[in-house]
């Protein structure tokens, strides 16, 4: 047939050859593009295909006290992780893990939740496994595919409960933290500081994560644990040196009365915090490697709120210690002198409009000068000082003295005190002319009313009294702001106030706490608490003639400041005189002292608007003792 003559068939064969050659050239071109031109890209994809990064936790920086003693350190520990291709296979492996080491269903649920948030990374099973757990798991390794056991530095706080509120604790960064970028540089699984110094100085302490690679197969199963090549060692965090005296801190913990809520701050006159304590406390070591759900629930549901740092995060009515602020305002404005006696001597109360404002001492103090009034904490005297000052002046000077602002102590979540900036506050709160300025003045002059302060704020104020009248910025590592607040008093005036505070301890409300070998100055206070027994204050400094240390404490439901005073005196003695010989372990001082606060005013007309306003203000002051 003609179609197969040699000319035509050669013609077609040539076309066929060209088609074949062209097709193979096309294939070869496609391989050249994939293998040579895009080689780098696919090389990288191949690596990421088979290598899974495992973050290496850096050792956190140590935290030292002012003598270089350890507050927080690292000890070797183990983390146990599982690499699983799917949630089902993870569940199966966890079942087998549970047969070897204890693992309850709540843990399994949590592990599965963590797995779903980062599927291609090994999921953390035990953040802080002990040697027994690790050796048991190693024994059963063959039955536990994907098991990754890593030795990791673990946080340890040797002083435990004594330093809980001070150093805070560490934990795994949460999704919320990451989306809000609260910890710059942290990635999923990073260990970050969650409270206290650990949080405040987290970027210094944390260091940066390293990484190592494990090799997995197509189904996400672990093949080789150390794929070597490109592992990056972690960069350790930098240490932080604090002004804390760990010995003093432990001492505070040891003497603090069992079951009493409250806080204590010990600070040098220039603001270096030596001890910062809050009770009830908790064990920060429980958070290492992930706190278990039961402990966490117990901590968060405890009515005593152990996680709350009462030294900086709770507001209390400042009560009698505030009388020094009133005195300082009046001295600064030259409205009273140290030896000024008020026109109306104390007869146990003072009539004001249709009410009688009482002094805490029913019998009255008689006629006193300023020093004597402070020593006796006479309410009637300070009512009259307040009336001389007027509400505007009290508010204005109070703001200047920092009663409206935080101290900027270098700890996270310091609570701002409540202190009105001007009388407009009362107009807003009660409505114009629905509150009584004179009654408010009387309340403010003795530290009651719409005025609540944190412990650290009050200690800062007493730091100014102890020093040169300039308020120090309390700090544990370094001051976050320069000291700008000045009481504006002359040395003589400051000296006079200090003398009056010595008198408090020598003869006045805290006389029972006096100890012969160290002159202590201080002021007691009793903060009215509508929810129960009153709270007790004591803020003092020593040595009284040349103050080095300022110690303030508040104890909830202590009823009287005089209950608190012995503890503060003990802390002052310990910090200045050092440990007492064992034989002279301080005995609890029996205090016999009357209430050191003005009792409720007697209502002549209980239905008056003013009466209700006062009742409201008291209620509000009481309410603010709990943190919002």
């Amino acid at each position: 047939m003609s179609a197969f003559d040699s000319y035509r068939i050669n013609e077609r064969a040539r076309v066929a050859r060209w088609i074949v050659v062209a097709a193979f050239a096309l294939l070869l071109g496609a391989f050249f593009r994939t293998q040579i031109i895009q080689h780098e890209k696919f090389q990288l994809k191949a690596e990421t295909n088979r290598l899974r990064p495992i973050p290496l936790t850096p050792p956190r920086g140590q935290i030292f006290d002012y003598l270089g003693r350890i507050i927080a350190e690292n000890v070797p520990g183990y983390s146990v992780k599982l690499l699983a291709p799917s949630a089902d296979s993870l569940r199966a492996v966890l079942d087998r893990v549970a047969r070897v080491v204890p693992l309850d269903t709540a843990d399994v649920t949590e592990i599965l939740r963590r797995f779903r948030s980062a599927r291609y990374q090994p999921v953390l099973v035990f953040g802080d496994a002990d040697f027994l757990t690790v050796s048991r798991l190693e024994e059963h390794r063959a039955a536990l595919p994907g098991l990754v056991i890593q030795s990791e530095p673990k946080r340890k706080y040797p002083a435990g409960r004594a330093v809980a509120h001070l150093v805070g604790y560490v934990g795994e960064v949460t999704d919320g933290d990451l989306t809000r970028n609260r910890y710059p540089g942290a990635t999923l699984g990073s260990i970050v500081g969650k409270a206290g110094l650990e949080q405040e100085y987290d970027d210094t302490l944390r260091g940066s994560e390293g990484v190592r690679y494990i090799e997995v197969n197509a189904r996400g199963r672990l093949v080789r644990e150390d794929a070597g090549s490109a592992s990056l060692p972690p960069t350790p965090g930098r240490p932080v040196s604090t002004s804390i005296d760990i010995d003093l801190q432990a001492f505070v913990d040891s003497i603090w009365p069992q079951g009493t809520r409250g806080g204590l701050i010990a600070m040098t006159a220039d603001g270096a915090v030596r001890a910062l304590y809050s009770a009830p406390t908790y064990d920060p070591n429980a958070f290492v490697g992930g706190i278990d759900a039961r402990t966490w629930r117990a901590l968060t549901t405890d009515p005593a709120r152990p996680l709350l740092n009462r030294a900086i995060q709770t507001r209390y009515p400042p009560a009698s210690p505030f009388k020094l602020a009133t005195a300082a305002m009046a001295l600064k404005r030259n409205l009273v002198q140290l030896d000024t006696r008020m026109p109306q001597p104390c007869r146990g109360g003072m009539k004001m409009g249709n009410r009688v404002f009482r002094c805490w001492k029913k019998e009255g103090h008689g006629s006193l000068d300023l020093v004597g009034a402070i020593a006796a904490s006479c309410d009637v005297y300070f009512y009259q000082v307040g009336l001389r000052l007027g509400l505007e002046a009290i508010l204005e000077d109070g703001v200047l003295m920092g009663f409206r602002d935080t101290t900027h102590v270098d700890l996270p979540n310091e609570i701002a005190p409540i202190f009105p900036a001007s009388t407009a506050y009362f107009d807003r709160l009660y409505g114009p002319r629905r509150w009584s300025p004179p009654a408010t003045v009387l309340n403010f002059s003795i530290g009651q009313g719409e005025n609540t302060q944190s412990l650290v704020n009050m200690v800062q104020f007493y730091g100014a009294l102890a020093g040169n009248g300039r308020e120090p910025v309390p700090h544990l590592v370094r001051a976050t702001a320069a000291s700008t607040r000045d009481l504006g008093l002359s040395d003589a005036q400051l000296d006079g106030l200090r003398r009056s505070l010595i008198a408090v301890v020598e003869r006045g409300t805290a006389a029972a706490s006096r100890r012969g070998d160290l002159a202590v100055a201080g002021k007691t206070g009793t903060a009215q608490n509508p929810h129960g027994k009153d709270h007790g204050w004591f803020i003092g400094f020593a040595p009284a003639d040349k103050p080095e240390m300022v110690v303030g404490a508040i104890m909830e439901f202590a009823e009287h400041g005089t209950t608190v005073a012995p503890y503060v005196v003990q802390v002052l003695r310990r910090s200045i005189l050092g440990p007492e010989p064992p034989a002279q372990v301080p005995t609890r001082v029996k205090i016999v002292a009357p209430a050191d606060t003005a009792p409720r005013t007697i209502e002549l007309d209980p239905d008056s608007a003013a009466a209700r306003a006062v009742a409201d203000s008291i209620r509000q002051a009481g309410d603010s003792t709990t943190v919002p």
Partner: protein
Amino acid sequence: MRLAAIDRQLAWVALALMACGFIVLYSAGQTDVPTAGAGVWRRQFIWFGVGLAAAWAAFQTSPRLLEWLTPAIYGFSLVLLIIVLAVGTGAGTAAGSHSWLAIGSVRIGQPSELAKVATVLMLARYLSSRREPPRSLRDLVAPALIVGIPFLLVLKQPDLGSALVFVGVFFAMMFWCGVRPRLLFMIASPGISLLLAFSNVTWAFWIIGFTAVLFYWRPYVLDGLTFWLLNVASGTVAMPLWHRLAPYQQNRLLTFLNPEVDPRAAGYHAIQSRVAIGSGGWLGTGYTEGPQKRLAFLPEQHTDFVFSVVGEELGFVGVAIALTLFMALLLILVRIARRATDSFSSLMIFGIVGILFSHVFENVGMTVNLMPITGIPLPFFSYGGSFFIICCLCLGLAFRVAWDSRLAGYADV
């Protein structure tokens, strides 16, 4: 019979390809994790033996006898295809389909592989019996039926890859028997219309252009009208047809266009294969050392994607050598077809060229995403009995045709 007269080129290339195939298949089983391909290279030795026997038998068979037997072989393969549709089982890479013939639980083979050769034979017999190559649509009815019946039966299994091989065979043999290229173009035009129908704009351009071409070429009125109507019809049924495709087939076509659409499921093969090949570079990661293969990231690495192992472990150089061998094989077969003593032999060999070319181009092309992914084996490389034996059989036929033409003194034409 003088063995010295055997086609040496073909012998060397075929042996080289089989050797390469074994070497790569062995490596494909060397993994760090258990895979199905672990020990298949040993079983492939059995197929190698059977294949040699088949090649020898084919070599011994006179083309005349074969031509006489052709209707019986073709009929037998069609019966097998029908049986397999009724009682066939799936296996291995095509577990969901009915492509395997099994007695009890022993799988005998894939009838579709035999059907490819049977169709080539039947088409060669039909075309060589005619005096003129098909010139019109009417002349094409019989060839279209010869290919169309097994094509549809295979498509029904479903085995899209093998079905496409029939299309390749059809066009190859039409071309070789002297059908004018413009008629081939018109035959292909409904298919092109089908592909372009996914966008109304491109399809409008196509139909206008095609109409213009018809007016210029002036084919028979009936032919022209029929092809035009077929174009319109395929354009309009494109979308309904698309929806009738199984989801996995749709996915394969979609992921061919963009593998990143679905990197974990349908696009997985396309991506992993390219990653393995791309990471090979010039010289590859070393024989049996490829990490993607060792860790089983490569899909079906001993069957459909065996060529990815070549790319990863032997690099571009290895790929170039393998492709050169395949190209040499095809060119040698074209040469044998050209020098064949009779038109039946010539058409038969060119049909075999069509089979092998379709397989190599589709299989190698899909590993680099040049072609959509269809489950189709690579001659001499992929593990599998039926196809290896069929390939050997084809080589046996080629040796016979080359031998005949050499004895007839056609060697230097």
